[in-house]
């Protein structure tokens, strides 16, 4: 811990590039929840998510010489997504242990969240949180990763395109379809959609 003034990422990154492991571990402290949360939502399983997050930091440290600048955060998320994709691909090769793309929410073990994080904004989401997590788990992985990056973590289209390796147009269409699907899954949640149990234009398909 070099100092307590929350040095900017760039500074810690350049220290880490010189082999300063403490500086890099400050970055780990800063981003481990973010990386772990992304992995957890992508993989749906705590142990696998911790492994993927640990490997993310390990390979990020090794790949630091190739880091060209820009947002360290989205660079990290991109590495994390790659590890998640590897893990999902590995699972596809195995006997399916967990039905991942089923729309049935009860299949996915998302723990009940602890309702404390951001009291003001989380008021509405508190009741909704578990339902939202289950709905996210019901998305196809490619739509889910775009939703997570764009809507949950607030990345810009360009950053998402770089992180996922697809075009801007694909990012937009996946985001649009992902949101559509979430609305359909959550259609019966009056906390989120108070007016109607039915979606006037979302019910196609």
């Amino acid at each position, binding site marked *: 811990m070099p100092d307590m003034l929350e040095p900017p990422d760039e500074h810690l990154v350049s220290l880490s590039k010189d082999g300063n*492991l403490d500086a*890099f*571990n400050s970055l*780990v*402290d800063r981003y*481990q*929840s*973010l*990386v*772990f*949360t992304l992995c*957890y939502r992508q993989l749906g399983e*705590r142990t696998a*998510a*911790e*492994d993927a*997050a*640990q*490997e993310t*930091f*390990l390979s990020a*440290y*090794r790949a630091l010489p190739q880091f060209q600048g820009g947002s360290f955060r989205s660079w990290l998320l991109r590495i994390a997504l790659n590890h998640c994709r590897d893990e999902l691909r590995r699972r596809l090769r*195995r*006997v399916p242990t967990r039905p991942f793309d089923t729309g049935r929410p009860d299949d996915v073990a998302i723990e009940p*969240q*602890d309702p*404390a*994080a*951001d009291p003001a*904004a*989380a008021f*509405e*989401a508190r009741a*909704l*949180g578990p339902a*939202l*997590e289950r709905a996210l788990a019901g998305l196809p992985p490619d739509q889910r990763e775009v*939703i997570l990056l764009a*809507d*949950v973590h*607030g990345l*810009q*289209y360009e950053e998402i395109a770089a992180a996922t390796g697809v075009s801007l147009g694909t990012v*937009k269409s996946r*985001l*649009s379809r992902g*949101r559509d699907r*979430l*609305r359909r899954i*959550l259609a019966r949640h009056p906390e*989120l*959609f108070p*007016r*109607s149990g039915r*979606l*006037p*234009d*979302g019910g*196609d398909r």
Partner: protein
Amino acid sequence: MTDRLFRRHRAWHALITDAVSGRADEASRQRLDAHVARCDACRTRLEDERRLRAALQSLPLREPSRSLRLTAAMLEHPRAAPSRRAAPGPVLLLAARGIAAAAVAAFAVVALLALASPADDGGSVSLASREQAEDTVAPMAAPSEGESADHAAPLAPFAATPGAPPGLASPPAGGGAPNSDRSPDAGGPSGDTAADHGEDRVADGSKPGEAAENAQPAAARSGGPAEGSRVPSWLLLATGAAAAAALAALAGLEIARRK
């Protein structure tokens, strides 16, 4: 009609997605505002997407159960975890599959041979015993007493209970009524002991087996295959064990690969 309407709305949907993401420019936003003032469906969609995004943004972060800080040890053992995962390589796996297949095939061949050869042996043995049976069918009653008495003596040294065969064999000679229900029993044990101890002699085709064969052809037949498959039986067991071991090793490898 609905198709055209739907397609026209698809254009608005893209704009709604952009607007909710904060990526619509000023002119597009004004166009969208004007549109949703007239279009209930698009207004609902816009509001829904905004609410959804707000809810997603307020989802809390989760904490890993351990610190993910890197240690010098992690860096010193490069790729420890990934290489361990990739350890059972494709070559090893192919080799294991080949060995397992070969072991199973060998077992199958031996098992087929073992199934086939006792059938032949059994056939010949049962034929032989049938011939022997036919030989003795005619002189069934009277000579059998003498013969059994004769043969009981040579059998006696081999038997663990020397007294039993003569003892059991003599009552028929002594006469009928009380022992009529015992005679099947008498035939049974003596036949068994004859089959047990006289196996080699049955194969030799020597005479002492005759009495036993006559009394209990089934016992002789059941002894026949055992003798016929005596040599393959350990081979059968060995190849079976080898096949099982190879399959178990392959299963272990596959499981390790999937872990």
